């Protein structure tokens, strides 16, 4: 008995020492925040302060920003506000949370809304506008958006004819990751059309390899990578007009053109000869975390992986992302025509009050100045659809490629459809049905019919 008690006390003592050491360690080392690489120091960058003078003297005011962007991507955000703070004397308080989407609604409803929130889904923006808490964008922001953004981006920030939220960052989803060195060793060429891509897949399969790897696991959100596949192919096989009608439910969800598109996806994702390189059978797609799904490319057990530009953050440290490096990406090729349509996502800046400091900050965020400052302080993995962004300022070649896609006036851009559909579908039925489609081999027609039946009555 006494022996045991003493042992416990010793364990407690050891634990206590551990805490003390941890605390001491924290005090001793003053390491600065992440980032790294060849990024610029925000304090060295300066902008033209003139656009913010019309908002009056803002010295000493604070603007709170609430976002879903957390460590390590948050530090470049905070750094990118420095030139604005130096111009105006406004103090921008940044807060990021992974529970942003749930917490923002709680805060807005209890009257504790932040000044500005970065909203990643147009659908959520519409919900918030419905509560009456969001204020329309000031005229300076409207002018900036008209000048720097493609018309389609403006419509995603518009609810019922009123423009509320300017676009901020963006990501391009129509990418296929591959290993340039593996392609070169095997003598494969980057495919330029869908048919070439299928031919290449056949060639790899015949030589005994598995051309594709995929994973749609993502906790509660399992299934979303599959929705991107479907959207990308609808955009290619049926065209942007049909895509818009489909997203807005002007045609049924199980329209024959959508069935055809999903069957095209199935030709790759449900083809046992093609998948799932290095990870297992077809069913393993449903159980593999999306973040890990592309990693077999590194050891050569898989050759292609369709995922957005932000996937570059998932490659382990030391992986060279470049056209002649360990991994790179090519645009998912078009089925018809020359140029590949671009599927993408992004955040929008919604303001919850119209104080001059807040409006000045909104104006800054929608300007080309901000996009360029942000590009210079960011590491790889950030891009904006702002056409005032100088592509040279981006660090990573994949971001440069994405920015070129966004800025190409001929490229068709469409926002991620599942973010535009009602939440019950875009963040619910579509996820689960597509997971069933892969995991339980549910027939294509039935999957789409079940989603159609789940669509909320208007």
């Amino acid at each position, binding site marked *: 008995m006494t022996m045991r008690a003493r042992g416990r006390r010793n364990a*407690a003592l050891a634990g206590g020492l551990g805490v003390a050491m941890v605390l001491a360690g924290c005090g001793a080392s003053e390491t600065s925040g992440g980032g790294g690489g060849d990024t610029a120091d925000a304090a060295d960058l300066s902008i033209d302060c003139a656009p913010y003078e019309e908002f009056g003297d803002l010295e000493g005011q604070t603007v709170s920003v609430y976002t879903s962007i957390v460590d390590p991507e948050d530090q470049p955000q905070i750094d990118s506000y420095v030139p604005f703070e130096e111009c105006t004397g406004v103090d921008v308080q940044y807060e*990021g949370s992974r529970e942003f989407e749930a917490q923002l609604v709680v805060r807005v409803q209890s009257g504790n809304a932040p000044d500005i929130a970065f909203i990643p889904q147009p659908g959520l923006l519409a919900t918030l506008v419905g509560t009456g808490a969001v204020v329309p964008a000031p005229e300076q922001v409207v002018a900036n958006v008209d000048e720097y953004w493609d018309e389609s981006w403006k419509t995603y920030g518009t609810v019922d004819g009123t423009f509320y939220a300017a676009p901020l960052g963006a990501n391009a989803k129509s990418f296929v990751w591959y290993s340039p060195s593996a392609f070169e060793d095997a003598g494969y060429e980057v495919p330029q059309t869908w048919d070439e891509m299928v031919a290449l897949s056949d060639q790899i399969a015949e030589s005994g390899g598995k051309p594709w790897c995929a994973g749609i696991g993502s906790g509660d959100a399992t299934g979303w990578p599959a929705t991107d596949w479907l959207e990308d192919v609808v955009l290619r096989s049926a065209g942007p007009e049909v895509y818009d009608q489909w997203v807005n439910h002007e045609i049924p969800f199980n329209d024959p053109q959508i069935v055809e598109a999903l069957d095209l996806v199935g030709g790759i994702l449900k083809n046992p000869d093609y998948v799932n390189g290095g990870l297992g059978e077809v069913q393993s797609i449903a159980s593999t975390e999306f973040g890990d799904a592309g990693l077999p490319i590194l050891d050569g057990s898989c050759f292609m992986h369709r995922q957005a530009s932000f996937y570059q953050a998932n490659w382990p440290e030391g992986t060279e992302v470049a056209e002649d490096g360990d991994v790179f990406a090519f645009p998912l090729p078009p089925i018809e025509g020359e140029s590949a349509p671009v599927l993408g996502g992004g955040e929008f800046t919604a303001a919850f009050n119209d104080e001059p400091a807040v409006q000045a900050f909104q104006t800054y965020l929608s300007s080309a100045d901000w996009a360029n400052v942000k590009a210079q302080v960011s590491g790889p993995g950030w891009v904006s659809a702002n056409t005032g962004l100088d592509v040279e300022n981006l660090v990573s070649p994949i971001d440069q490629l994405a920015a070129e896609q966004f800025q190409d006036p001929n490229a068709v851009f469409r926002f991620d459809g599942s973010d535009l559909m009602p939440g019950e579908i875009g963040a619910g039925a579509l996820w689960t049905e597509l997971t069933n489609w892969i995991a339980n081999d549910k027939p294509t027609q039935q999957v789409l019919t079940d989603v159609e039946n789940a669509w909320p009555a208007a």
Partner: protein
Amino acid sequence: MTTTTPVMAPVPVDERRLTRAERRAVAARTKFSSPAASVIALVIAVLWTVPTLGLLITSFRPELDIRRSGWWTVFTDPTFTLDNYNEVLYGGGTNFASLFVNSLVITLPAVVIPITLALLAAYAFAWIDFPGRNVLFVAVFALQVVPIQVTLIPLLSIYVDTGLAGSFWTIWLSHSIFALPLAVFLLHNFMKEIPASLVEAARMDGAGHVKIFFQVLLPLLTPAIAAFGVFQFLWVWNDLLVALTFAGGAPDVVPLTVRVAELAGTRGSDWYLLAAGAFVSIVLPLVVFLGLQRYFVRGLLAGSVKG
């Protein structure tokens, strides 16, 4: 270890005079100290510890290993690194030491306030006869069934209206509110168990309520207070929901758990850090639990089971 205690140790003179409860207690003691029971206990203990052990091992493995294989592969291919802990403690823009302090600053008052209030309330419910006492006591305990989720938005609205939002007060008050029903109930039951004759004797000697409370009851209540303290400490320390909701908008007030929740990164790509983060955040609760374990178990039985 458990030496096989002689079964018949405190058997009174006459076996027939044993009450049913006592007989059952003796039988239980025999059953629980049998070798079979020890083996079962050992197996359960191992089963329950394996996931934690896996987590501990994972927290020391290199990133790529964590992503590509399970922790059990260390037995064939042992590679360890402190990088994960380095990243959790010093990586990113947040200062871990200040978060640790925040967690402490949140936890201590959130434990002391409800215990203090609940002690006073429990005393009144147990030893002061006032009209409506039972109804009120049931009403207080009935609050235990209110799920805290339904209170989040109304409570936050009140804090915003009174200007408290964004300070430690919101978290202290919220935790106190949520803890009080159970605290009052547990401490009341414990106080009731103290023989009435003890309190009456003190009263005969001329002691008032204050004197009885501090000099007679409080010393006897120490295990119950410690037990509830451990309970509440662990709950508050591990809490994410309350802190996230009420400390929201005030980054200098958030506790450790909020930072651990953000560790995985915007798109979950850094989930390999979670094992190390979990271990950093359980260091203190582990110390508290090991230190006060005896009270914990004793107090668990104290409030609920009579006799």
